[in-house]
């Protein structure tokens, strides 16, 4: 098995704050992997260490067989990295931005032009190539960022909230690009807060307080949610939720979906449920909420 990423006890402290606390992970090459976790859980810090942009303060790791402690410069040449705030030059055109990144990756002039044409075609930006980057909408900007990040044909793509703020169609198009890279043999690691996107990952690691608390396929993760989910239709789901809380029912993990209240219970169906209550299949978001609230409850316990 080819290994794309392997870390052992990877740790990063900022002063007395531990952002990443002993992350151990092995990702085989090929496929799409997801890092999920609450804001501030250490996902971005971990990715920046894998990208060779930040040195760990403890532990070790390798990316594409290169040591992240000693070979970060080489790593940068072999990976593509897109963060939410990817630096595009607003006053340069789409083409000029690609040309600039082609230069950073030391692509020869002759080779560069061909790669840029391919990146434009890939990201459906050929018609926009002479527009200043400043005039691009959010979805276009992110596609251009991806185009810039793959000019050197990286074997590993690190995408840190690359679709944040993008509209649903722009996200779908971006994910089609991700699949194409995965199909062509590129290993892709993404972080996202859109859990519908995460359903498409081959494997997911949940990260909280800088450590991995679950690591599996989306199917197995969803199956690990204890209890069952029920959807209770109601013309006033907010009122229903507040009423049930006031009656002393445990409503942690309950949430509103349109004209329904969704409740997770362990054991029999909730006894307050009326007609029309349906058992529903959990989504990754349900597991996410469960894991975060479980951890929080533990922390708040005296």
């Amino acid at each position: 098995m080819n290994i794309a990423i392997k870390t052992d006890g990877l740790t990063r402290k900022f002063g007395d704050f531990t952002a990443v606390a002993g992350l151990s992970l092995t990702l085989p090459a090929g496929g799409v992997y997801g890092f999920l976790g609450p804001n501030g859980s250490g996902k971005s810090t971990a990715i920046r260490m894998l990208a060779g942009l930040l040195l760990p303060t403890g532990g070790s790791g390798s990316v594409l067989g290169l040591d992240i402690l000693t070979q970060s410069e080489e790593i940068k040449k072999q990976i593509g990295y897109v963060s939410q705030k990817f630096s595009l030059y607003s006053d340069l055109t789409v083409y000029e931005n690609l040309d600039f990144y082609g230069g950073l990756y030391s692509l020869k002039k002759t080779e560069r032009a061909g790669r840029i044409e391919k990146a434009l075609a890939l990201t459906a930006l050929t018609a926009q190539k002479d527009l200043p980057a400043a005039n691009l909408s959010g979805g276009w900007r992110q596609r251009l960022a991806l185009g810039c990040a793959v000019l050197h044909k990286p074997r590993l793509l690190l995408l840190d909230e690359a679709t944040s703020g993008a509209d649903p169609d722009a996200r779908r198009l971006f994910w089609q690009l991700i699949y194409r890279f995965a199909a062509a043999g590129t290993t892709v690691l993404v972080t996202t807060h859109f859990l519908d996107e995460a359903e498409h990952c081959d494997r997911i690691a949940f990260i909280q307080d800088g450590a991995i608390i679950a690591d599996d396929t989306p199917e197995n993760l969803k199956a690990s949610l204890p209890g069952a989910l029920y959807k209770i239709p109601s013309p006033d789901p907010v009122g229903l939720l507040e009423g049930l809380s006031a009656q002393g029912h445990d409503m942690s993990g309950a949430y509103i979906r349109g004209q329904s209240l969704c409740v997770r219970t362990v054991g029999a169906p909730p006894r307050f449920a009326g007609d029309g209550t349906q058992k529903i299949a959990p989504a990754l978001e349900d597991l996410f909420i469960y894991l975060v609230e479980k951890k929080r409850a533990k922390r708040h316990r005296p």
Partner: protein
Amino acid sequence: MILETLDLKKYFAGKQILKGISLAIKRGEIFGIVGPDGAGKTTFIRSVLGLYRPDGGSVSLFGGAGSEYPKSRVGYVPQQFSLNADMTVWENIALFSRLYGLPEALWAARAEKLLDMVWLGDFKNRLADSLSGGMKQKLALICGVIHEPEALFLDEPTTGVDPVSRREFWQMLYRLNRAGLTVAIATPYMDEVELCTRAAFFNQGQIRLVGAPAELLALYPYKLFAVRADNLRLILRRTLDLPVRAAYLQGTRLHVALDGESGLPALEEALAAAGLGAFAITPVRPTLDDLFSFAAGLPGPAGPGIGRAADLAPAAASSGGAP
């Protein structure tokens, strides 16, 4: 009526961003403002609040004319909310309260209540800079309502916020709404639109659809089918070459929009002929995500065609890492 715009127009650098928006938001609503990037959502909110001067049409807040409304009646949480990074959570709230001329006896009690509502009670003395993204947005919301406005305008406040924080953010919005606050919120999350009383779908500076979530769903014009299969990504690529209205992955399924039931046998036949493994097709009801795609102009055959990734991927043979 909280807000009424009539044929609102706005240009930037000769380009028309708002092409005549007529919209009314009633007291007590949670109103969603939805649309693709560049649809004019932010420009609309800013024009309504008098931050931009409209180039045509009219705006009326609380029945008044133009931007002539008492600022104390409106709250605004912009995309990039300016919290003072080197001030604590409490100091940020204090600053906003003083800007609105609130006496400390009044705002301090409100602040305590609002902080507890979103689990920020323990973080009063933390610097805004060291808050997580979700916490920052909750603080922004508190600063936006500390003067108890009648109407609150929010511009994609939950972008980059994790699912748990997003729910807490919405629970707070709900409670404020039930206490009388009218909310207008731009969002890229369709599950949030589901929580709105009504929503308007913007595209290219115009309103394409407006109504309650259930009414909006009834406007979906196609027959929608869900395809389940092991090989969804390959099936998607094949489907995009077929004469379908739209095809895209939605969660763990592939959604395919057809003009009617009659197109189904041809679809099944083509997918079976492609030999991409077993699959199952069932009719499904559209969700707001599907409606978004319809209202925004469809991806797939009609959308931008993306190119080959193989051109910019390492050769398959060398795609692996260390042995």
